[in-house]
Each structure stands twice: as structure tokens, then as C-alpha cells.
């Protein structure tokens, strides 16, 4: 388990002070994959450097399995750092060393004897599916293969935490998927705790159990993925599972945006709602998937005008959050011509 408490990092350049991190707290349990996402300049790379202690935070603590890394002096820190494996952004391999020599680097630093080292390197390369490419130099490998070598190197000293600092940025979508699948597999096999620093929402959606949104050096939102997706007020949840673009509604219909808020939503809720309200319910768009075992979803429906309070209650009873919208189209688009002015005023 790794615990970040109130991490602050202030950079001083002459007169100006810039707080790259401003009180970041995050707790990641053993075997959990947590993603920290944010726009560029939010402090993601500073956070990564404070987690593996390449930079010392100005204040706050990084506690790894009960040990406070921030309290350690440089010599002991070097040892403690070995229990955090870091996968860097692509192309962080040493260009003049083979894949095997790159993986061996942390073992060489530790002065592990040669036979043991070679055995471990072989095992690691096999684990990342590169058993036959040990003698290849980085320029002879594809981007995905290079990143797997990076993962193998990060695992060399059997760390309990794996920190991935933008490890998939610059990779194509298929390669990204395979690298992420590998991280997921490693988590399952080695019960690794993984912290993913990324700017790609797809990465978070694909693999994370937990996500935190970093903005201007602060974590503005944080939670388990399904909780975020079920929270209608969550910006991160909306980015993770956006409302799909909806088809135009028939004239004179109210358009509702529906949000799964419970982990127990009857799959037949559209039919149930139509029966309860005694009205036809048209499904204009829906996106339903399962995170873990339970469904999360978004839908846009149209129905003949009904008391909004009644509709909201019925939806709530079904574990859904409903919001009457004037227009099913995405904001910024022209209102669809077949949505009458009446529907607009009712929503306001």
C-alpha cells in the first residue's frame, strides 16, 4: 500500500515561487490500480517524481508499506526506491545496451551475481513476452516492445509498487491496449500496486480501479471508477463515460438524460418506466457497460410531456438519475428543428 499525504512541491526560481503540487493526498491499496489524470501542466510529472522520490517534496509524506520515504536520507532512500519500480515514457531505454542489459541494470547496480542476474533477466523478458529478443538493441524493437522492456526493468527488483509515468503516451491505440493488458496481468499475478500517471482518459477507462483528477497541483476529484461514473455531478465520471450523441426526438416530446446511479439497475428499466408512466418511452441513445461486475450507463430518452417530478421519482426508484434537457444534441450545437419551443421552456 502506498499513501501520499498532503504532498506539496514548490519550485523557486529567483523571486518567483511556483507550487507544482499543492496538498495532494492519495491512498492506493495493495493490488489496486490507481490512475492520476490531468491536463498538461497540472503537476503530473512532478507528482510522479515525488512518488519515486527522484525529487523530494517540499512538504508532505510518501509512505510505502508503513515506511515514510520522505524521512529517509539519500543512502537509505536509494534502497527504499528499489521497492518502487518506475516505467518511464517510451524511449527511456539506454540506447547502447541490449534489451537484456537494460533489464539487468537495476540488478547490476545492486551487484547481484552474474548467474542469478542472467536467470532473473531471462525470467523477466519471458514474462513480458520478449524471451527471444534479449540481444536486440532498443532501435531494433518496436515502441510496444521497448515499453515492455521498460516494464521488465521496472520489475527487476521485485517492487511492491509500480509507477507508470505516461508509459503509454506516444504509442498507437492497439499497442497501448496490449501494454495496459500486460500491466493488468502483472497486477493479478504479482499483486502489484500500480499508480498510472496519464493524460489519456482511455487508459483510465481501460484499466484503472480508481481515478484521481489532478488540476493545478490539486486533486479535485477522486474515487473508484464505478462510483465516479454513477455520480451525476462528477466531471471525471462524465469524461469517463460521456453521454452518447442522441438521435433527434419526435416533436412534442420531453427529452431526458438518464444516469445510472445505483449498482442495481433492472436491465429492463425502459420497459418498466413506460408501464409506470403509461407512456411510450423512446430510447434515443444509450451507453451501458460493466465496471467490475456491475453496470454503469448513460441514456437519453424521449417521452410525452409528464410531470417532471413524477418522472424523476420513477427513475430514482429504478436506481437512475434523470435530468430534463431541452435538447438531446450536445451543447454548442444548434437545437434540432423538431424540438418544439414548448419543450425548451419546460426545461428552463
Amino acid at each position, binding site marked *: 500500500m502506498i499513501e501520499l499525504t498532503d504532498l506539496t512541491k514548490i519550485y523557486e526560481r529567483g523571486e518567483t515561487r511556483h507550487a507544482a503540487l499543492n496538498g495532494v493526498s492519495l491512498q492506493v491499496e495493495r493490488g489496486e490500480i490507481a490512475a492520476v489524470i490531468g491536463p498538461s501542466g497540472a503537476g503530473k510529472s512532478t507528482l510522479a517524481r515525488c512518488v519515486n522520490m527522484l525529487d523530494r517534496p517540499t512538504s508532505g509524506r510518501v509512505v510505502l508499506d508503513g515506511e515514510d520515504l520522505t524521512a529517509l536520507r539519500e543512502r537509505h532512500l*536509494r*534502497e527504499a526506491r528499489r521497492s518502487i519500480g*518506475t516505467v*518511464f515514457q517510451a524511449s527511456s531505454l539506454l540506447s547502447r545496451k541490449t534489451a537484456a542489459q537494460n533489464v539487468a541494470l537495476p540488478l*547490476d*547496480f545492486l551487484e547481484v551475481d552474474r548467474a542469478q542476474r542472467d536467470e532473473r533477466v531471462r525470467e523477466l523478458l519471458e514474462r513480458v513476452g520478449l524471451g527471444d529478443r534479449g540481444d536486440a538493441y*532498443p*532501435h531494433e524493437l518496436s515502441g510496444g516492445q521497448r515499453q515492455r522492456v521498460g516494464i521488465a*526493468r521496472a520489475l527487476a527488483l521485485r517492487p511492491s509498487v509500480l509507477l507508470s509515468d505516461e508509459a503509454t503516451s506516444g504509442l498507437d491505440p492497439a499497442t497501448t491496449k496490449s501494454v495496459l493488458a500486460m500491466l493488468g496481468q502483472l497486477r493479478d499475478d504479482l499483486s502489484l500496486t500500480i499508480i498510472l500517471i496519464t493524460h489519456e482518459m482511455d487508459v483510465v477507462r481501460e484499466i484503472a480501479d480508481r481515478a484521481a483528477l489532478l488540476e493545478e497541483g490539486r486533486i479535485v476529484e477522486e474515487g473508484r471508477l464505478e462510483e465516479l461514473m454513477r455520480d451525476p455531478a462528477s466531471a471525471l465520471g462524465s469524461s469517463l463515460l460521456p453521454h452518447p450523441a442522441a438521435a433527434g426526438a419526435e416533436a412534442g416530446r420531453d427529452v431526458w438524460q438518464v444516469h445510472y446511479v445505483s449498482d442495481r439497475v433492472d436491465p429492463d428499466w425502459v420497459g418498466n418506466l413506460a408501464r409506470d408512466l403509461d407512456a411510450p418511452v423512446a430510447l434515443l441513445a444509450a451507453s451501458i457497460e460493466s465496471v467490475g461486475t456491475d453496470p454503469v450507463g448513460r441514456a437519453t430518452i424521449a417521452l410525452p410531456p409528464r410531470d417532471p417530478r413524477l418522472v424523476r421519482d420513477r427513475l430514482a426508484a429504478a436506481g437512475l438519475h434523470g435530468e430534463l434537457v431541452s435538447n438531446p444534441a450536445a451543447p454548442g450545437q444548434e437545437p434540432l428543428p423538431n424540438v418544439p419551443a414548448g419543450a425548451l421552456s419546460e426545461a428552463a
Partner: protein
Amino acid sequence: MLPLATNTPLGELPDLLLPAIGQTLQMVGVTMAIVVALGTPLGVALHNSARGGLFPRPKLNAVLSWVTNLGRSLPFLVLMASIIPFTRLLVGSTIGIWAAVVPMTVAGIPFFGRLVENALREVPREVTDVARASGGSTMQIIWRAQLSEALPGLVAGLTLNSIAMLEYSAIAGVIGAGGIGFLAISYGYQRFDTSVMVATVLVLIVLVQIVQLSGDFAVRRLKRG
């Protein structure tokens, strides 16, 4: 009347040139050995004491940088003349091969230090981060990550520096250092011996080409991708 110029017969040239080539190689070789031994740590210190280095020490960096610039700011002839007392103190003489090695080394170390610093700067910053995150000690990181990755650049710098030293060794001929430069000045310049002049020029051209071509070859071999 004595002829103004006497050209050494071609047959006697090897007897003049071969020992001179040997002396030149000796001067450059000894100088480069010392320059590499002392210039490399200087370059490593310059690189790593700067902001973003392994041990940022802005004040130390400023001092090192100032001293390095000092060594690089004098033309070689002036440097050579101005440190004569130091040279005499060190080798007990102000003429000959060893007297030339002292100013050549003094000029070569700061030059090579800057070349090493440049070569290290060309290595991506992530290499140092990776090595630190992999649990390397400062010395391990310097040797097995920084210098190892910078090797092609270091060899290119070594080539450049060796050629500069070849040039300096010829300048040192002015103070009777021996070698090709001395030959060129004492025979070619002072005695108007055209055949020795031409021969020394050719030898210098060939030496520089050999050093440059083998340096380029080594750099190509050391680079991966």
C-alpha cells in the same frame, strides 16, 4: 657565396621525419592520456553540478565553469609563454618534449572538460532518471548510464581534442619542443628548406586524416541506431 636555401635530398628525409613523427606522437599521446584522466572528471563535474544534474551545486558549478573558461581564453602561444615558470617547476626545463606536454595539458584539460560536458548534455535526461530510479549510486549512474550512453560523443570529442593537440604540438615547436612542428620551423621556415617544409605539411595532413577517420569509424561503431 652560400646558397640561401638548401633543400635536403629526398633520400635523407626519412631520417629527419621518422624521429620527429615519433616525438609528436609521444607528446600528443602523453598529453591526451593526462587530458582524458583529468578532463573527464572535470566534464562530469561541470555537467552534474549544474541545475538538473546529479548533485546540483550552483556555486561549485560557477567556479568550475570560470576556471574552465580561464584555461580556454588564452591563445596557445601566449599560454605556453606565460606558464614557463610553472613548466620549469614541474619538469625542470623549458625546452623539449616534456616542456611542451605541460602547456598542452593545461590547454587540453579545460577543452576536453567542455567536450565531455557537451557529450553528457546530449544524453537524454531520462537516462539519469532511469538510473536513479533503478537504485544506482552516484558513481554507478555516472559510469554505467551517463558516460556509457555518451560514449560515441566522448570519442568524437577525443578525436577533436587529439587533432587540436597535434596542432598545439606543432606550435610548441617554436620553443624547441621537438617533433614535426620543430622540424617545420627549424628547417622549413628558418632555413628555407622547401623539401622538409612540404614533407612536414604532408605528414601533418596525413596524421590529422588518420586520427579523424579512425575517430569517425569508432563513433559509427559505438552508436546503436
